[in-house]
């Protein structure tokens, strides 16, 4: 009977409000659910913000959480999608000693094979950028680690749903123009 956890991407469309991040994160805190990643940005509609929150919980819990999020006054709508229902990416940056780039042939090969980009090069370090799924950025991490990673950072998930979200309909806006 016990349901399995699954990874869900929760998209929340909101009015721009100072306290809203606090209110939304409190919904997860109250239920002891940890947030795996969180991104906030301007949405496709003017003056409307979008939060993308990734959590690993059961389907019935995500359904309840969505309703609690939608209950917040300044939330316009909230949706959840499984990984299969979304197209999603994360970006990772890797800072490596420049010495390694020039001395180790293999590192150039790793960069090339992983389809990563070199963003910047300085006498001390260079920075590689890789955008893709979590497993891709993690693979590159594992490959670069032996050469001494000075810094590593990964963004929250950005995603779009495969199905339309109809947020404009909810707001009565026409965004086709």
């Amino acid at each position, binding site marked *: 009977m016990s349901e399995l956890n699954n990874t869900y991407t929760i998209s929340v469309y909101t009015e721009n409000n100072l306290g809203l991040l606090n209110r939304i994160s409190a919904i997860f805190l109250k239920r002891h659910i940890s947030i795996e990643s969180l991104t906030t940005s301007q949405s496709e509609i003017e003056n409307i913000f979008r939060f993308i929150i990734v959590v690993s919980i059961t389907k019935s819990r995500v359904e309840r959480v969505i309703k609690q999020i939608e209950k917040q006054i300044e939330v316009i709508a909230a949706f959840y999608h499984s990984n299969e229902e979304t197209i999603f990416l994360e970006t990772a940056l890797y800072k490596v000693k420049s010495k390694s780039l020039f001395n180790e042939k293999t590192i150039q090969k790793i960069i090339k094979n992983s389809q990563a980009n070199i963003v910047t090069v300085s006498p001390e370090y260079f920075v590689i950028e890789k955008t893709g799924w979590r497993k891709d950025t993690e693979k590159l991490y594992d490959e670069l680690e032996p050469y001494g990673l000075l810094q590593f950072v990964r963004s929250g998930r950005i995603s779009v749903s495969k199905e339309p979200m109809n947020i404009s309909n909810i*707001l009565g806006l026409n965004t086709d123009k």
Partner: protein
Amino acid sequence: MSEITKISGAEAVIKSLLKEGVDLIYGYPGGAIMPIYDELHKYEDKLNHVLTRHEQGATHAAQGFARVTGKVGVVMATSGPGATNLVTGIADAQIDSTPMVCITGQVASHLLGSDAFQETDIIGISSPVTKWNCQVTKASEIPEVLAKAFYIAKSGRPGPVLIDITKDAQFELMEFSYSKCKTIRSYTPVPNYSIKQLKKAAELINNAKKPLIVFGQGVILGNAETEFKNFIEKTGIPSAWTILGLSALPSDHPLNVGMVGMHGNYGPNVLTNQCDLLIAVGMRFDDRVTGNLDTYAKQAKIIHFDIDPAEINKTVEVDVPVLGTVKETLPEILKLVNKNNHQNWLGKFHSLYEKEYSKVIKEELHPTKEGLSMAEVVKEINIASKGNAIIITDVGQHQMVACRYAKFNESKSNVTSGGLGTMGFALPAALGAKMGAPEREVVAIIGDGGFQMTIQELGTIFQTGSAVKIVVLNNNYLGMVRQWQEMFFEKRYASTELVNPDFVTIAKGYYIEAKKVSKREELKSSIELMMNSKKPFFLEVSVEKEHNVFPMIPTGASVSDIRLD
């Protein structure tokens, strides 16, 4: 010219309140809200400000006012400790869906985040327990934000709103114009009901052989008492109430089968697990109502009428949800349901009541023991009030007893802290209730523990002269915790015994007429004396020290495993 029409932000607050029809505020002044109090002084002929003795008292008084009037309760406090002292009352109003607007002063905006004197992040602190909150740093924002605050507090499922106004915004000049908030694009206070779901619900109701209704505060908040009565009378369905649903249906209504939940009546609890259809009306399946969810009404189909989509399938999975306000959905379903009666099924409730009566109620109401029982005190209040009083209760044994035995003819007459279980609620709430319904008798029934949590509000009752009748049922224990210690912790009475002061002397110290009763033969006359008084009156009743409230569903047990002893 425009200079002349400009007013301060502080005055805009008062004018906004007047536009919302507010004439009563509970509060406590302090540094960061002084400009608003200064304006209050000028408007004191239009706006009555009641100075409570603690900010928590102001919140509970506003709640008591809101619960008996259906209007928004208004509270004011200063920044820092003034604001944090509101938190318990706000949380209470949130979980019990009470409309309330709290206005707090805040340090000047240039000091925000500097740990200034009496600065606290009340927006952050109150976020999880408010329906909405907002900080205002510009005077020009005040009318619009307050209009939104009142609209949000009272529309849909009501709740508390907190508006934090920096001191510079209170001083700043602005041009005042006010228009009431009628809609917010991201907020749907009342979701649309679906005809399809109504038809499904009606079909289940028409085919049910053993239906049971459990109704909650939604009936009261929706002003749907008449619609509810019409619905149950046509369908003939036995109806049980949650603690906050109490008084929505008169106590003597033939279809009123009592209270569900932990200390509710035997019949509706046992029969929850025998009914074939459970119809929840404006209630939220609180754990104190359902007991163990794994064994709650598993045999029944469940229909859930509620205004809040987040309540659907929150704890109990339902077969047919009916969203919307019961004020609209009940008349709609009335057209679709057949006239019916369920006399045999209703008879089951009556026979289980007989069992409860002989095992519990008889001894409670007519004790053979020497000590006074809490229930016989409630019974005497019923007799004296003829069921017409507003009864305010605190939290604990006396609350369960009062809700079990108090009789009500009118709705909005039971005021208690249900969801949060806030000890100290009753005394200030009774003041608010009396000010909201001055023509009605208001009786606060309080335990000796909870009474001492907000005892300072005797001062406010004295100062306002509100004729609140205060009954303290004194057993020198935190009775409910002691009961659990007796039943589940082998009588280890850890920190539950209270050595109490002379309450009568304290009440008299506040110039409130007071009396103490410890003998049965004095009880009736003392209650009559209290009820006949036109002034505040304090009555202490010494009750049996170690008495347990039954029936009881132990934690984790099924509703049908309710114990009579």
